[in-house]
């Protein structure tokens, strides 16, 4: 079982809490998903609204760990302030660090990401950086104190799956001992299975479940797909080959011509 900053998670599924049709469906989707981590955010609160308290109560009742994010931040300083506000509100030093560099693709800003990660790690945060499959960026993030990497599969919310399997395999192979979570772009359970089979340690997704026609059923599907991928990886899959090879023994076949 992979450890994330010293915490062994009972499930490799991390699920977002946004965009569900209702709080009740969110809660039921979490129950069916067996997810071990819920991602959350901080947003402006109106005086007397108490929306945040209601949501926080719902999340606490899920009985999972909380991973706050810095979604929507376009600079290191904005992300750092958001992270500090999240730490106070959610009482955790875990932070899913997002520093966005491009508004269309929501691609991370590698320079701002490393800058923010360095400062947050020094300040005692356990940083989960939303990154790409870039090996140099991974190296810099590890250098400044990150102990987990969260490469994207494809841009946030697209559901396009693993767009660069070669790059992701390379990243996995270069840092075999670093816990890695595929974060963003997963649209189908089969894509989550593929990522787990490649050796990634967990899957973080939101939209694919929340925007499914039946989020509860999709949460169940993802739960099984992630578990299947993990089991397959642990089972040491066969090596693919170009030439066909019969699986039924040739010796002993009746001569019938």
């Amino acid at each position: 079982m992979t450890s994330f900053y010293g915490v062994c998670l009972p499930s490799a599924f991390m699920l977002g809490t946004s965009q569900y049709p209702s709080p009740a469906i969110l809660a039921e989707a979490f129950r069916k998903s067996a997810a071990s981590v819920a991602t959350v955010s901080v947003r402006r609160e109106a005086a007397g609204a108490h929306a945040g308290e209601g949501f926080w109560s719902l999340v606490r009742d899920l009985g999972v760990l909380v991973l706050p994010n810095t979604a929507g931040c376009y600079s290191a300083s904005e992300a750092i302030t958001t992270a500090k506000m999240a730490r106070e509100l959610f009482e955790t030093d875990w932070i899913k660090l997002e520093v966005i560099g491009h508004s269309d693709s929501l691609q991370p800003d590698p320079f701002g990401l490393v800058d923010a990660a360095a400062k947050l790690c020094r300040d005692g945060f356990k940083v989960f950086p939303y990154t790409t499959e870039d090996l140099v960026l991974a190296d810099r993030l590890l250098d400044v104190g990150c102990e987990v990497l969260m490469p994207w599969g494809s841009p946030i919310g697209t559901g396009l799956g693993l767009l660069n399997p070669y790059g992701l395999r390379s990243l996995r192979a270069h840092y075999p001992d670093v816990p890695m979570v595929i974060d963003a772009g997963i649209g189908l359970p089969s894509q989550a299975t593929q990522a787990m089979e490649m050796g990634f340690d967990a899957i973080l997704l939101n939209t694919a479940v929340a925007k499914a026609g039946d989020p509860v059923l999709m949460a169940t599907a993802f739960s099984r797909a992630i578990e299947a991928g993990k089991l397959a990886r642990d089972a040491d899959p066969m090596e693919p080959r170009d030439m066909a090879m019969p699986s039924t023994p040739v010796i002993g076949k009746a001569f019938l011509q």
Partner: protein
Amino acid sequence: MKILINGLHKDVTAQKLGAILLEAGYGDMRVATAVNGGFVAVEQRKEFEIEAGDQVEIVAPRQGG
């Protein structure tokens, strides 16, 4: 004095962040704060001086992906 709270113009009489939160109706709500882009921890609010034109952000837990 005039300040910005969550992007909206507000006229407040209090000078300290903690008192401004009370005056603006946040009472004992579970919120986190930042002033002019910098985090202000809950234990600092009581003595944290606010000046005219300052931008105060007040946030709470929300859904996230």
